[in-house]
Protein backbone atom coordinates (compact mmCIF):
# COMPACT_ATOMS: atom_id res chain seq x y z
CA UNK A 1 0.00 0.00 0.00
CA UNK A 2 2.78 2.44 0.88
CA UNK A 3 4.77 3.87 -1.99
CA UNK A 4 7.91 5.90 -2.15
CA UNK A 5 7.40 9.56 -2.90
CA UNK A 6 9.54 11.81 -5.00
CA UNK A 7 10.95 13.67 -1.97
CA UNK A 8 12.79 10.60 -0.88
CA UNK A 9 14.18 9.75 -4.27
CA UNK A 10 15.57 13.27 -4.41
CA UNK A 11 17.20 13.03 -1.02
CA UNK A 12 18.77 9.68 -1.84
CA UNK A 13 20.27 11.04 -4.99
CA UNK A 14 21.59 14.04 -3.15
CA UNK A 15 23.17 11.93 -0.42
CA UNK A 16 24.77 9.58 -2.89
CA UNK A 17 26.38 12.41 -4.81
CA UNK A 18 27.63 14.41 -1.89
CA UNK A 19 28.82 11.82 0.56
CA UNK A 20 29.93 9.10 -1.75
CA UNK A 21 31.71 6.05 -0.48
CA UNK A 22 31.58 6.98 3.16
CA UNK A 23 27.80 6.72 3.14
CA UNK A 24 27.85 3.51 1.15
CA UNK A 25 30.14 1.91 3.71
CA UNK A 26 27.98 3.15 6.56
CA UNK A 27 24.78 1.93 5.02
CA UNK A 28 26.18 -1.44 4.17
CA UNK A 29 27.22 -1.80 7.80
CA UNK A 30 23.72 -0.99 9.04
CA UNK A 31 22.27 -3.19 6.33
CA UNK A 32 24.46 -6.02 7.56
CA UNK A 33 23.01 -5.60 11.05
CA UNK A 34 19.48 -5.50 9.69
CA UNK A 35 20.12 -8.62 7.62
CA UNK A 36 21.32 -10.34 10.81
CA UNK A 37 18.07 -9.40 12.59
CA UNK A 38 16.03 -10.62 9.65
CA UNK A 39 17.78 -14.00 9.76
CA UNK A 40 17.41 -14.25 13.53
CA UNK A 41 13.76 -13.29 13.67
CA UNK A 42 12.30 -14.87 10.56
CA UNK A 43 14.73 -17.73 9.83
CA UNK A 44 15.66 -18.75 13.40
CA UNK A 45 19.34 -18.30 12.47
CA UNK A 46 20.80 -16.22 15.31
CA UNK A 47 24.52 -16.76 14.58
CA UNK A 48 25.20 -13.61 12.54
CA UNK A 49 23.60 -11.31 15.11
CA UNK A 50 25.20 -13.07 18.08
CA UNK A 51 28.64 -12.42 16.56
CA UNK A 52 27.97 -8.68 16.56
CA UNK A 53 27.01 -8.31 20.25
CA UNK A 54 28.27 -8.74 23.79
CA UNK A 55 26.90 -11.36 26.17
CA UNK A 56 27.40 -12.43 29.76
CA UNK A 57 27.18 -15.77 31.49
CA UNK A 58 23.79 -14.90 32.97
CA UNK A 59 22.38 -13.09 29.97
CA UNK A 60 23.88 -14.84 26.97
CA UNK A 61 24.01 -13.54 23.42
CA UNK A 62 21.45 -16.19 22.43
CA UNK A 63 18.99 -15.12 25.14
CA UNK A 64 19.43 -11.48 24.16
CA UNK A 65 18.67 -12.17 20.51
CA UNK A 66 15.75 -14.39 21.50
CA UNK A 67 14.10 -11.47 23.32
CA UNK A 68 13.76 -9.70 19.97
CA UNK A 69 12.81 -12.85 18.06
CA UNK A 70 10.08 -13.69 20.58
CA UNK A 71 8.81 -10.10 20.61
CA UNK A 72 8.20 -10.09 16.86
CA UNK A 73 6.79 -13.60 16.56
CA UNK A 74 4.64 -13.05 19.66
CA UNK A 75 3.26 -9.80 18.25
CA UNK A 76 2.33 -11.42 14.93
CA UNK A 77 0.74 -14.46 16.58
CA UNK A 78 -1.26 -12.22 18.91
CA UNK A 79 -2.40 -10.20 15.89
CA UNK A 80 -3.73 -13.40 14.29
CA UNK A 81 -5.53 -14.35 17.51
CA UNK A 82 -7.08 -10.86 17.71
CA UNK A 83 -8.25 -11.03 14.08
CA UNK A 84 -9.51 -14.61 14.14
CA UNK A 85 -11.05 -15.10 17.63
CA UNK A 86 -13.72 -17.60 16.52
CA UNK A 87 -11.16 -19.76 14.72
CA UNK A 88 -9.13 -19.75 17.94
CA UNK A 89 -12.20 -20.90 19.89
CA UNK A 90 -12.94 -23.63 17.34
CA UNK A 91 -9.48 -25.23 17.44
CA UNK A 92 -8.47 -24.28 21.00
CA UNK A 93 -5.74 -21.90 22.15
CA UNK A 94 -2.87 -24.38 21.99
CA UNK A 95 -3.63 -25.66 18.51
CA UNK A 96 -4.16 -22.07 17.32
CA UNK A 97 -0.68 -21.20 18.62
CA UNK A 98 0.73 -24.01 16.47
CA UNK A 99 -1.16 -22.72 13.46
CA UNK A 100 0.12 -19.21 14.20
CA UNK A 101 3.72 -20.39 14.45
CA UNK A 102 3.47 -22.12 11.07
CA UNK A 103 1.78 -19.10 9.49
CA UNK A 104 4.28 -16.56 10.84
CA UNK A 105 7.14 -18.70 9.51
CA UNK A 106 5.53 -18.82 6.07
CA UNK A 107 4.38 -15.19 6.00
CA UNK A 108 6.77 -12.65 7.55
CA UNK A 109 5.17 -9.25 8.01
CA UNK A 110 5.55 -7.12 4.87
CA UNK A 111 3.48 -4.11 5.97
CA UNK A 112 4.18 -1.62 8.76
CA UNK A 113 0.45 -1.61 9.55
CA UNK A 114 -0.35 -4.65 11.68
CA UNK A 115 -4.03 -4.34 10.73
CA UNK A 116 -3.05 -5.69 7.33
CA UNK A 117 -1.36 -8.82 8.72
CA UNK A 118 -3.08 -12.19 8.33
CA UNK A 119 -4.82 -11.86 4.95
CA UNK A 120 -3.53 -15.26 3.78
CA UNK A 121 -4.70 -17.10 6.90
CA UNK A 122 -7.99 -18.41 5.40
CA UNK A 123 -6.15 -19.86 2.40
CA UNK A 124 -3.48 -21.35 4.64
CA UNK A 125 -6.19 -23.02 6.71
CA UNK A 126 -7.83 -24.39 3.56
CA UNK A 127 -4.55 -26.04 2.57
CA UNK A 128 -4.03 -27.40 6.07
CA UNK A 129 -7.55 -28.87 6.17
CA UNK A 130 -6.64 -30.90 3.11
CA UNK A 131 -3.35 -32.03 4.65
CA UNK A 132 -4.09 -32.67 8.32
CA UNK A 133 -6.36 -35.45 9.54
CA UNK A 134 -7.25 -33.65 12.77
CA UNK A 135 -8.73 -30.76 10.76
CA UNK A 136 -10.96 -32.91 8.54
CA UNK A 137 -13.89 -32.54 10.93
CA UNK A 138 -13.46 -28.75 10.82
CA UNK A 139 -13.81 -28.49 7.05
CA UNK A 140 -15.64 -25.17 7.52
CA UNK A 141 -12.74 -23.57 9.42
CA UNK A 142 -11.26 -21.76 6.42
CA UNK A 143 -14.65 -20.21 5.58
CA UNK A 144 -15.10 -19.03 9.18
CA UNK A 145 -11.65 -17.44 8.88
CA UNK A 146 -12.70 -15.75 5.64
CA UNK A 147 -15.76 -14.34 7.41
CA UNK A 148 -13.58 -13.00 10.24
CA UNK A 149 -11.18 -11.38 7.73
CA UNK A 150 -14.15 -9.68 6.03
CA UNK A 151 -15.33 -8.35 9.42
CA UNK A 152 -11.82 -7.11 10.17
CA UNK A 153 -11.63 -5.23 6.85
CA UNK A 154 -15.14 -3.80 7.18
CA UNK A 155 -14.26 -2.34 10.61
CA UNK A 156 -11.37 -0.30 9.16
CA UNK A 157 -13.00 0.58 5.81
CA UNK A 158 -13.45 4.22 4.73
CA UNK A 159 -16.67 5.94 5.76
CA UNK A 160 -19.63 5.87 3.37
CA UNK A 161 -20.34 8.76 1.06
CA UNK A 162 -23.86 10.06 0.47
CA UNK A 163 -25.48 9.09 -2.84
CA UNK A 164 -25.89 12.09 -5.15
CA UNK A 165 -29.62 11.86 -5.88
CA UNK A 166 -29.72 15.24 -7.62
CA UNK A 167 -27.13 14.26 -10.19
CA UNK A 168 -28.79 10.87 -10.57
CA UNK A 169 -32.25 12.37 -11.19
CA UNK A 170 -30.86 14.66 -13.89
CA UNK A 171 -29.56 11.77 -15.99
CA UNK A 172 -31.18 11.19 -19.35
CA UNK A 173 -32.84 7.81 -19.84
CA UNK A 174 -30.28 6.97 -22.56
CA UNK A 175 -27.55 7.12 -19.93
CA UNK A 176 -29.18 4.65 -17.55
CA UNK A 177 -28.06 1.45 -19.15
CA UNK A 178 -24.37 2.33 -18.82
CA UNK A 179 -24.58 3.21 -15.15
CA UNK A 180 -22.30 1.27 -12.84
CA UNK A 181 -23.26 1.55 -9.18
CA UNK A 182 -20.70 1.74 -6.40
CA UNK A 183 -21.12 -0.48 -3.36
CA UNK A 184 -20.07 0.98 0.03
CA UNK A 185 -16.41 0.24 0.84
CA UNK A 186 -17.35 -1.53 4.06
CA UNK A 187 -19.47 -4.18 2.30
CA UNK A 188 -17.91 -7.60 1.80
CA UNK A 189 -19.71 -10.59 0.35
CA UNK A 190 -19.02 -14.28 0.72
CA UNK A 191 -20.73 -17.62 0.26
CA UNK A 192 -19.99 -20.93 1.87
CA UNK A 193 -21.30 -24.50 1.51
CA UNK A 194 -21.27 -24.64 5.34
CA UNK A 195 -23.56 -22.97 7.92
CA UNK A 196 -20.75 -20.66 8.99
CA UNK A 197 -23.05 -17.78 9.95
CA UNK A 198 -24.64 -19.87 12.70
CA UNK A 199 -21.23 -21.18 13.75
CA UNK A 200 -19.83 -17.64 13.92
CA UNK A 201 -22.90 -16.24 15.72
CA UNK A 202 -22.88 -18.98 18.34
CA UNK A 203 -19.34 -17.90 19.29
CA UNK A 204 -20.24 -14.25 19.86
CA UNK A 205 -20.96 -12.76 23.25
CA UNK A 206 -24.30 -11.48 22.05
CA UNK A 207 -27.41 -12.69 23.79
CA UNK A 208 -29.03 -13.62 20.52
CA UNK A 209 -30.27 -17.17 20.75
CA UNK A 210 -28.93 -19.29 17.92
CA UNK A 211 -30.98 -22.40 18.77
CA UNK A 212 -33.86 -21.34 16.53
CA UNK A 213 -31.66 -20.24 13.69
CA UNK A 214 -32.14 -22.22 10.58
CA UNK A 215 -28.75 -23.73 9.76
CA UNK A 216 -28.99 -23.33 6.02
CA UNK A 217 -26.48 -25.69 4.48
CA UNK A 218 -25.33 -23.03 2.00
CA UNK A 219 -24.72 -19.54 3.40
CA UNK A 220 -24.77 -16.22 1.57
CA UNK A 221 -23.38 -13.50 3.80
CA UNK A 222 -23.02 -9.75 3.63
CA UNK A 223 -20.56 -8.12 6.01
CA UNK A 224 -20.87 -4.38 6.57
CA UNK A 225 -20.31 -1.71 9.20
CA UNK A 226 -23.35 -0.48 11.07
CA UNK A 227 -23.29 1.80 14.12
CA UNK A 228 -19.48 1.72 13.92
CA UNK A 229 -19.34 -2.06 14.38
CA UNK A 230 -18.68 -4.64 11.66
CA UNK A 231 -21.60 -7.02 11.36
CA UNK A 232 -22.45 -10.16 9.39
CA UNK A 233 -25.90 -10.63 7.86
CA UNK A 234 -27.34 -13.77 6.37
CA UNK A 235 -28.93 -12.77 3.06
CA UNK A 236 -30.77 -14.73 0.40
CA UNK A 237 -29.13 -15.93 -2.77
CA UNK A 238 -30.86 -13.44 -5.09
CA UNK A 239 -29.68 -10.41 -3.09
CA UNK A 240 -26.20 -11.91 -2.84
CA UNK A 241 -26.01 -12.32 -6.62
CA UNK A 242 -27.22 -8.76 -7.18
CA UNK A 243 -24.77 -7.19 -4.71
CA UNK A 244 -21.95 -9.30 -6.07
CA UNK A 245 -22.73 -8.16 -9.62
CA UNK A 246 -22.72 -4.52 -8.48
CA UNK A 247 -19.43 -5.05 -6.67
CA UNK A 248 -17.98 -6.40 -9.91
CA UNK A 249 -19.00 -3.21 -11.78
CA UNK A 250 -21.80 -4.81 -13.84
CA UNK A 251 -23.68 -2.07 -15.73
CA UNK A 252 -27.35 -1.46 -14.95
CA UNK A 253 -28.43 -2.85 -18.33
CA UNK A 254 -27.16 -6.29 -17.28
CA UNK A 255 -28.70 -6.20 -13.80
CA UNK A 256 -32.30 -6.53 -15.01
CA UNK A 257 -32.80 -10.22 -14.26
CA UNK A 258 -30.98 -10.00 -10.95
CA UNK A 259 -33.11 -7.01 -9.90
CA UNK A 260 -36.32 -8.86 -10.77
CA UNK A 261 -35.41 -11.70 -8.40
CA UNK A 262 -33.93 -9.56 -5.64
CA UNK A 263 -35.95 -8.61 -2.54
CA UNK A 264 -34.40 -5.12 -2.69
CA UNK A 265 -34.49 -2.74 -5.64
CA UNK A 266 -31.84 -0.13 -6.40
CA UNK A 267 -33.66 2.65 -4.55
CA UNK A 268 -33.85 0.52 -1.42
CA UNK A 269 -30.15 -0.33 -1.69
CA UNK A 270 -29.39 3.40 -1.95
CA UNK A 271 -31.69 4.22 0.99
CA UNK A 272 -30.01 1.55 3.08
CA UNK A 273 -26.64 3.13 2.27
CA UNK A 274 -25.39 -0.03 0.56
CA UNK A 275 -25.05 1.75 -2.79
CA UNK A 276 -23.20 5.03 -2.35
CA UNK A 277 -22.50 6.30 -5.85
CA UNK A 278 -22.40 5.64 -9.56
CA UNK A 279 -20.31 6.19 -12.65
CA UNK A 280 -20.52 5.28 -16.32
CA UNK A 281 -18.96 2.29 -17.95
Amino acid at each position, binding site marked *: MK*TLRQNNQLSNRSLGNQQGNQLDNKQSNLQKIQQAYSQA*IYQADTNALELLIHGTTD*FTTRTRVDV*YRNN*TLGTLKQTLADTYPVCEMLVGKNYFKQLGTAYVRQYPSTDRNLDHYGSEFPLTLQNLIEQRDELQKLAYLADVAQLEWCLHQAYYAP*NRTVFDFERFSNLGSEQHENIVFKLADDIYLMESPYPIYTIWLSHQNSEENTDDLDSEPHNYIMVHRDSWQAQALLIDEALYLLLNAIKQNTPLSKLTDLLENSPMDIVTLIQQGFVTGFEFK
Partner: protein
Amino acid sequence: MPSILPHSIATQAGIGLRTQHINQILDQRVPVPWFELLVDNWLADGGLTQRYLDEIIERYPVTLHGVGLSLGGTEPLDFTYLGEIKAILQLSGFNNGGFENSNKPLWYSEHLCFSQLQSHYSHDLLPLPYTDESVKHIANRIQQVQDFLGCQMLVENVSSYLEYKENSFSEGEFIHAIVEEADCNLLLDVNNFYVNQVNHGQDAFQQIRALPHKRVKEIHLAGFEDKQTHVVDAHNNPVADEVWDLYKQTLALTGPVATLIEWDNDVPELDILLNERQKAQCFLDKQTASVTTSEKVA
Protein backbone atom coordinates in the same frame (compact mmCIF):
# COMPACT_ATOMS: atom_id res chain seq x y z
CA MET B 1 -18.14 22.03 28.96
CA PRO B 2 -16.08 22.67 32.11
CA SER B 3 -12.55 23.82 31.50
CA ILE B 4 -10.26 20.84 31.89
CA LEU B 5 -7.42 22.33 29.96
CA PRO B 6 -4.20 23.77 31.35
CA HIS B 7 -2.36 26.66 29.78
CA SER B 8 0.72 24.61 29.18
CA ILE B 9 1.43 20.91 29.38
CA ALA B 10 5.08 21.52 30.28
CA THR B 11 4.15 21.29 33.96
CA GLN B 12 1.51 18.58 33.49
CA ALA B 13 1.44 14.81 33.57
CA GLY B 14 -0.67 13.01 30.96
CA ILE B 15 -1.48 9.43 30.04
CA GLY B 16 -1.27 7.31 26.93
CA LEU B 17 -4.79 6.93 25.54
CA ARG B 18 -5.88 3.28 25.38
CA THR B 19 -8.95 2.00 23.55
CA GLN B 20 -10.27 0.32 26.70
CA HIS B 21 -10.74 3.73 28.32
CA ILE B 22 -12.04 5.88 25.48
CA ASN B 23 -15.76 5.52 26.12
CA GLN B 24 -15.35 6.25 29.83
CA ILE B 25 -13.15 9.27 29.09
CA LEU B 26 -15.55 10.74 26.55
CA ASP B 27 -18.76 9.92 28.43
CA GLN B 28 -17.57 11.18 31.82
CA ARG B 29 -15.39 13.97 30.43
CA VAL B 30 -12.59 12.70 32.65
CA PRO B 31 -10.24 15.59 33.48
CA VAL B 32 -6.81 14.65 32.13
CA PRO B 33 -4.39 17.47 31.22
CA TRP B 34 -3.29 15.78 27.98
CA PHE B 35 -3.19 12.48 26.14
CA GLU B 36 -0.61 10.86 23.95
CA LEU B 37 -1.92 8.95 20.93
CA LEU B 38 0.04 6.02 19.54
CA VAL B 39 -0.39 7.40 16.05
CA ASP B 40 0.02 4.06 14.25
CA ASN B 41 -3.25 2.94 15.86
CA TRP B 42 -5.13 5.98 14.55
CA LEU B 43 -4.47 5.86 10.82
CA ALA B 44 -7.68 4.08 9.74
CA ASP B 45 -9.49 5.45 6.69
CA GLY B 46 -12.81 5.61 8.53
CA GLY B 47 -15.02 4.02 11.16
CA LEU B 48 -14.93 4.27 14.91
CA THR B 49 -11.19 4.93 15.06
CA GLN B 50 -11.55 8.12 13.04
CA ARG B 51 -14.61 9.26 15.01
CA TYR B 52 -12.83 8.80 18.35
CA LEU B 53 -9.77 10.62 17.00
CA ASP B 54 -11.86 13.65 16.08
CA GLU B 55 -13.61 13.67 19.47
CA ILE B 56 -10.43 13.35 21.50
CA ILE B 57 -8.63 16.07 19.55
CA GLU B 58 -11.72 18.25 19.90
CA ARG B 59 -11.65 18.02 23.69
CA TYR B 60 -8.08 17.47 24.86
CA PRO B 61 -4.54 18.55 24.09
CA VAL B 62 -2.77 15.60 22.46
CA THR B 63 0.67 14.60 21.31
CA LEU B 64 1.39 11.99 18.62
CA HIS B 65 3.83 9.15 19.23
CA GLY B 66 4.92 6.80 16.46
CA VAL B 67 6.46 3.33 16.38
CA GLY B 68 6.42 2.52 12.67
CA LEU B 69 8.78 4.92 10.90
CA SER B 70 12.05 2.97 11.21
CA LEU B 71 13.99 6.22 11.58
CA GLY B 72 17.31 4.41 11.82
CA GLY B 73 16.55 1.99 8.99
CA THR B 74 18.28 1.90 5.64
CA GLU B 75 15.16 1.53 3.53
CA PRO B 76 13.85 4.85 2.10
CA LEU B 77 11.65 6.84 4.48
CA ASP B 78 7.95 6.21 3.82
CA PHE B 79 6.52 9.62 2.96
CA THR B 80 3.06 8.22 2.40
CA TYR B 81 2.98 7.11 6.03
CA LEU B 82 4.46 10.46 7.11
CA GLY B 83 1.80 12.21 5.03
CA GLU B 84 -0.92 10.48 7.05
CA ILE B 85 0.77 11.63 10.27
CA LYS B 86 1.11 15.15 8.89
CA ALA B 87 -2.63 15.18 8.18
CA ILE B 88 -3.38 14.36 11.83
CA LEU B 89 -0.86 16.98 13.00
CA GLN B 90 -2.86 19.52 11.02
CA LEU B 91 -6.26 18.49 12.39
CA SER B 92 -7.95 21.38 14.10
CA GLY B 93 -10.17 20.62 17.00
CA PHE B 94 -8.79 21.59 20.34
CA ASN B 95 -9.49 25.27 20.81
CA ASN B 96 -8.87 26.90 24.12
CA GLY B 97 -7.82 30.53 23.98
CA GLY B 98 -4.36 31.22 25.24
CA PHE B 99 -3.05 27.68 24.93
CA GLU B 100 0.26 27.25 23.19
CA ASN B 101 -0.13 25.70 19.72
CA SER B 102 -3.87 25.55 20.18
CA ASN B 103 -6.01 23.73 17.62
CA LYS B 104 -3.48 21.08 16.66
CA PRO B 105 -1.69 18.09 18.16
CA LEU B 106 1.32 19.53 19.93
CA TRP B 107 4.11 17.41 18.46
CA TYR B 108 5.12 14.13 16.90
CA SER B 109 7.73 11.82 18.38
CA GLU B 110 9.48 8.67 17.15
CA HIS B 111 12.17 6.30 18.37
CA LEU B 112 15.93 6.25 17.79
CA CYS B 113 15.88 2.77 16.33
CA PHE B 114 14.93 0.78 13.25
CA SER B 115 12.08 -1.66 12.71
CA GLN B 116 12.11 -2.42 9.00
CA LEU B 117 14.28 -5.31 7.81
CA GLN B 118 14.55 -4.83 4.04
CA SER B 119 11.13 -5.98 2.79
CA HIS B 120 10.02 -7.27 6.20
CA TYR B 121 8.94 -5.61 9.44
CA SER B 122 9.89 -6.54 12.99
CA HIS B 123 7.15 -4.48 14.68
CA ASP B 124 9.73 -3.93 17.39
CA LEU B 125 12.18 -1.15 18.29
CA LEU B 126 15.60 -2.50 17.32
CA PRO B 127 18.67 -0.65 18.64
CA LEU B 128 21.29 1.05 16.47
CA PRO B 129 25.02 0.70 17.09
CA TYR B 130 26.39 3.78 18.87
CA THR B 131 28.73 4.87 16.10
CA ASP B 132 29.52 8.05 14.25
CA GLU B 133 28.04 6.54 11.10
CA SER B 134 24.73 5.86 12.89
CA VAL B 135 24.64 9.43 14.19
CA LYS B 136 25.04 10.91 10.72
CA HIS B 137 22.63 8.45 9.15
CA ILE B 138 19.73 8.94 11.57
CA ALA B 139 20.31 12.69 12.00
CA ASN B 140 20.01 13.10 8.23
CA ARG B 141 16.73 11.17 8.22
CA ILE B 142 15.36 13.18 11.17
CA GLN B 143 16.09 16.34 9.19
CA GLN B 144 14.21 14.92 6.20
CA VAL B 145 11.20 14.18 8.41
CA GLN B 146 11.31 17.65 9.97
CA ASP B 147 11.56 19.28 6.53
CA PHE B 148 8.56 17.25 5.36
CA LEU B 149 6.45 17.97 8.44
CA GLY B 150 7.52 21.58 8.61
CA CYS B 151 8.25 21.40 12.35
CA GLN B 152 10.68 19.99 14.86
CA MET B 153 10.06 16.46 16.06
CA LEU B 154 10.99 14.65 19.27
CA VAL B 155 13.10 11.51 19.28
CA GLU B 156 13.06 8.93 22.06
CA ASN B 157 15.78 6.72 23.55
CA VAL B 158 14.86 3.02 23.41
CA SER B 159 15.24 0.14 25.82
CA SER B 160 17.52 -2.62 24.60
CA TYR B 161 18.58 -6.17 25.35
CA LEU B 162 21.90 -6.21 23.52
CA GLU B 163 24.96 -4.02 22.97
CA TYR B 164 27.04 -4.05 19.80
CA LYS B 165 30.76 -4.72 19.93
CA GLU B 166 31.34 -1.80 17.55
CA ASN B 167 29.78 0.83 19.88
CA SER B 168 32.10 3.81 20.14
CA PHE B 169 29.89 6.14 22.24
CA SER B 170 28.02 5.75 25.50
CA GLU B 171 24.24 5.84 25.03
CA GLY B 172 23.97 9.37 26.45
CA GLU B 173 26.75 10.68 24.19
CA PHE B 174 25.16 8.96 21.18
CA ILE B 175 21.76 10.58 21.75
CA HIS B 176 23.32 13.96 22.50
CA ALA B 177 25.21 13.86 19.19
CA ILE B 178 22.09 12.93 17.21
CA VAL B 179 19.76 15.61 18.56
CA GLU B 180 22.39 18.33 18.14
CA GLU B 181 23.24 17.21 14.60
CA ALA B 182 19.56 16.95 13.61
CA ASP B 183 18.44 20.01 15.60
CA CYS B 184 15.45 18.14 17.00
CA ASN B 185 13.99 17.77 20.49
CA LEU B 186 14.17 14.88 22.89
CA LEU B 187 11.64 12.58 24.48
CA LEU B 188 13.47 11.17 27.47
CA ASP B 189 12.19 7.76 28.56
CA VAL B 190 13.40 7.34 32.14
CA ASN B 191 12.25 3.72 32.32
CA ASN B 192 14.20 2.82 29.17
CA PHE B 193 17.39 4.20 30.69
CA TYR B 194 16.72 2.15 33.82
CA VAL B 195 16.03 -1.01 31.78
CA ASN B 196 19.33 -0.50 29.95
CA GLN B 197 21.12 0.02 33.27
CA VAL B 198 19.99 -3.41 34.44
CA ASN B 199 20.55 -5.15 31.10
CA HIS B 200 23.93 -3.62 30.28
CA GLY B 201 25.34 -2.56 33.65
CA GLN B 202 25.53 1.11 32.64
CA ASP B 203 24.77 3.98 35.02
CA ALA B 204 21.39 5.35 33.93
CA PHE B 205 21.80 8.72 35.62
CA GLN B 206 25.20 9.20 34.03
CA GLN B 207 23.59 8.67 30.60
CA ILE B 208 20.81 11.13 31.40
CA ARG B 209 23.36 13.68 32.63
CA ALA B 210 25.11 13.51 29.24
CA LEU B 211 21.96 14.63 27.37
CA PRO B 212 21.25 18.20 26.18
CA HIS B 213 18.63 18.97 28.85
CA LYS B 214 17.19 22.05 27.17
CA ARG B 215 16.00 19.88 24.30
CA VAL B 216 13.98 17.57 26.57
CA LYS B 217 10.32 18.40 25.85
CA GLU B 218 8.69 15.22 27.14
CA ILE B 219 9.42 12.43 29.60
CA HIS B 220 8.03 8.88 29.51
CA LEU B 221 7.49 6.70 32.55
CA ALA B 222 6.41 3.05 32.43
CA GLY B 223 6.65 -0.25 34.27
CA PHE B 224 9.02 -3.07 33.37
CA GLU B 225 8.88 -6.83 33.90
CA ASP B 226 11.63 -8.63 35.82
CA LYS B 227 12.87 -11.78 34.03
CA GLN B 228 15.61 -12.52 36.63
CA THR B 229 18.53 -12.40 34.16
CA HIS B 230 17.24 -9.19 32.61
CA VAL B 231 14.26 -6.83 32.63
CA VAL B 232 11.84 -6.29 29.78
CA ASP B 233 10.32 -2.93 28.92
CA ALA B 234 6.85 -4.47 29.00
CA HIS B 235 4.69 -1.45 29.91
CA ASN B 236 2.49 -3.79 31.93
CA ASN B 237 3.20 -2.68 35.51
CA PRO B 238 3.18 0.38 37.74
CA VAL B 239 6.29 2.54 37.53
CA ALA B 240 8.97 0.99 39.77
CA ASP B 241 10.36 2.85 42.82
CA GLU B 242 13.83 2.94 41.26
CA VAL B 243 12.38 4.65 38.18
CA TRP B 244 10.51 7.23 40.28
CA ASP B 245 13.82 8.04 41.98
CA LEU B 246 15.54 8.41 38.62
CA TYR B 247 12.66 10.60 37.39
CA LYS B 248 13.09 12.93 40.38
CA GLN B 249 16.80 13.23 39.66
CA THR B 250 16.05 13.86 35.98
CA LEU B 251 13.61 16.68 36.72
CA ALA B 252 16.30 18.38 38.78
CA LEU B 253 18.38 18.53 35.59
CA THR B 254 15.68 19.41 33.08
CA GLY B 255 13.22 21.44 35.13
CA PRO B 256 9.48 20.68 34.77
CA VAL B 257 8.80 18.69 31.57
CA ALA B 258 5.52 17.26 30.23
CA THR B 259 5.45 13.72 31.59
CA LEU B 260 3.53 10.72 30.31
CA ILE B 261 2.50 7.47 31.97
CA GLU B 262 2.64 4.62 29.41
CA TRP B 263 0.74 1.41 30.12
CA ASP B 264 0.18 -0.67 26.99
CA ASN B 265 -0.22 -4.29 28.10
CA ASP B 266 -2.46 -5.82 30.78
CA VAL B 267 -4.06 -2.38 30.79
CA PRO B 268 -5.66 -1.66 34.20
CA GLU B 269 -8.80 0.29 35.10
CA LEU B 270 -8.54 3.98 34.25
CA ASP B 271 -8.43 4.93 37.96
CA ILE B 272 -5.18 3.04 38.44
CA LEU B 273 -3.65 4.83 35.48
CA LEU B 274 -4.89 8.17 36.82
CA ASN B 275 -3.31 7.43 40.20
CA GLU B 276 0.03 6.86 38.48
CA ARG B 277 -0.49 10.14 36.63
CA GLN B 278 -1.19 11.94 39.90
CA LYS B 279 2.01 10.59 41.38
CA ALA B 280 3.99 12.00 38.45
CA GLN B 281 2.06 15.28 38.83
CA CYS B 282 3.21 15.58 42.47
CA PHE B 283 6.85 15.27 41.39
CA LEU B 284 6.25 17.86 38.67
CA ASP B 285 4.50 20.26 41.07
CA LYS B 286 7.39 20.06 43.54
CA GLN B 287 9.87 20.73 40.74
CA THR B 288 7.79 23.64 39.44
CA ALA B 289 7.59 25.15 42.95
CA SER B 290 11.30 24.70 43.41
CA VAL B 291 12.05 26.50 40.11
CA THR B 292 9.67 29.33 41.04
CA THR B 293 11.29 29.69 44.47
CA SER B 294 14.81 29.78 43.07
CA GLU B 295 13.73 32.37 40.47
CA LYS B 296 12.33 34.58 43.26
CA VAL B 297 15.53 34.25 45.27
CA ALA B 298 17.61 35.14 42.19
